């Protein structure tokens, strides 16, 4: 099984402040690790240091126990990495773009063809004869993701793998990652807390280049109580009906004539009460937590993490 490790990792772009400060973690078992942080936190920098696209100012990065700065070929041999926005040459077709990757990873021609077919099925890739330059952004991104999977490397490093994808594509990729994590080690950076909690087993929170929290997803999720729900009614409801919910809610904001956003204390008891109150207003077709974006998670997590340290 593959592994990745960063040990006392620092990165500074002179003359600025460190982008990464003393970041350390190690994983060597199958599973998905979420790597979270706001823009500029140092997530992509960490991934680039792991694959040797950047040179550490201090500390070390290892892939499968090998420092990519010392032995790039050895370190990356069993690793698939999607960092930033990889772009195969636009003049090549999908098969040619993936063929080069598979062959470089040591696959025979037959195995490359089998792997390309497998990725085509897994990721619903565009026709293999289509040129990269003709593809949509989402299609190109799926081809880039397929490139990480060709040859079935045991370690996957994914930098916001679903950004730029449409909702259907996101569901597809999340489903795939959920399957892959059973026998692969995945490090996945993201802005979307909810998405990471759906896929990952463990989270690393990064802020200003430092790890501020590292924990199991279920324990972190417990600490972030979603305090907003989106309620969708079967039929339009007048805003004048909203005070009905205020017996349990802190605020009610009509989003459309059929959808309200309700803020409450986050407890399960209140949630159940709110659902009952909503059903008194009109039949409810959807009652779901508002997507928790990273910034909100931060407001919840970072002070607690600081208190913990």
């Amino acid at each position: 099984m593959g592994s990745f490790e960063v040990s006392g990792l620092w990165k500074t772009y002179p003359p600025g402040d460190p982008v990464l400060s003393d970041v350390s973690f190690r994983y060597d078992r199958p599973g998905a690790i979420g790597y979270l942080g706001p823009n500029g936190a140092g997530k992509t920098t960490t991934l680039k240091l792991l694959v040797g696209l950047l040179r550490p100012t201090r500390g070390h990065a290892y892939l499968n126990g090998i420092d990519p700065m010392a032995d790039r070929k050895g370190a990356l041999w069993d690793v698939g990495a999607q960092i930033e926005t990889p772009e195969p040459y636009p003049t090549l077709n999908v098969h040619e773009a993936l063929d080069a990757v598979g062959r470089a990873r040591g696959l025979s021609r037959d195995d490359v063809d089998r792997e390309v077919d497998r990725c085509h099925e897994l990721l619903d890739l565009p026709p293999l004869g289509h040129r990269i330059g003709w593809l949509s952004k989402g299609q190109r991104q799926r081809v880039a993701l397929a490139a990480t999977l060709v040859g079935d490397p045991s370690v996957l490093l994914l930098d916001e793998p679903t950004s730029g994808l449409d909702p259907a594509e996101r569901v597809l990729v999340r489903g795939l990652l959920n399957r892959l994590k059973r026998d692969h080690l995945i490090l996945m950076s993201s802005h979307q807390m909810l998405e990471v909690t759906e896929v990952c087993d463990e989270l690393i929170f990064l802020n200003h280049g430092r790890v501020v929290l590292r924990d199991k997803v279920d324990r972190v999720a417990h600490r972030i109580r979603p305090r907003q729900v989106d309620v969708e009614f079967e039929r339009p409801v007048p805003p004048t009906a909203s005070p009905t919910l205020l017996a349990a809610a802190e605020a009610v904001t009509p989003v459309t004539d059929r959808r309200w956003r309700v803020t409450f204390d986050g407890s399960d008891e209140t949630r159940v009460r709110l659902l009952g109150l909503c059903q008194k207003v009109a039949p409810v077709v959807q009652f779901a937590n508002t997507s928790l974006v990273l910034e909100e998670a931060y407001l919840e997590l970072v002070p607690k993490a600081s208190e913990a340290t």
Partner: protein
Amino acid sequence: MNPASTVSGALPVERVRISDFQQWIIVTVHQLQHYLRTNRFYGLVGFVVLIAALTLAFEIDAGVAAVRLQQLYRSSEYLSNYLVNTGLFVVLAAAFFGGDALSVDFSTGAGYYMLVLPIRRPVLLAGRYAAAALVTLAVIGVYYAFGAVGAIYFFGASAVPWALLFGSLGVAIIFALSALSVAFCVSAFVRSPTAGVLITVLALYVGFTTLQATLELAGIEPWFSLSYAGGAMAALLDTDFVHFQTVPLGEDQYYTIWSATVAEGLAIMAGYIAVFLPLSVYLYQRKESTG
């Protein structure tokens, strides 16, 4: 091989730790597939065909007798004069295919596709270098082919000095390798692909040519100029070759025109390859993807 990869639908695949040489071939083919479909390749081949065809058309229009007289009844003289322009095409090809060969990794997403593969950077560079050399050879091959057609038309196939012509093509290939070495070095140094192409053209064509002319005015042999070395391509076929000739400009003033001998030209080209190719490998290996 990942033996337990059934949940992701992967059948066990055997991955063999292939050699750098095998990866070099893979990179060369990959890069060649790209180059051969670019507009710049078609554009450059079109430009070469246009110039060569126009030259041939004007000569045919002038008539066989006139061309023979002008070329001293020697097909080698005809070819030598025709090949004087080869340097321009080599420089353009080197700039087009080498000027952004490495900078593309640090200014577009291409680097995030290729640099995360288990391939050493010198192998990547060597594959791209080989592909650029092959494409450049294709471009100059077209120009040489037109030259050969002209020589056969005006002097007959039996009069064409084939050995010298292929020898000249060999010199042109070495010249292309030296120009590509400079282009790759520029490409490893700058971040913008467009800047890489422009700097290469300006340095190899405008810069060296101007410097060469200036030095010749001062009576100094421009032995360090790559464009000067490129003269060896035509010199090989020049039956009346002279290394230098002094032309009077006025009273007590002379202008010395220097022409590189084949040996001298090859030595200069080898020097450029020996300096700039390792330098581009060093720069490429050190370069970080900071964008």
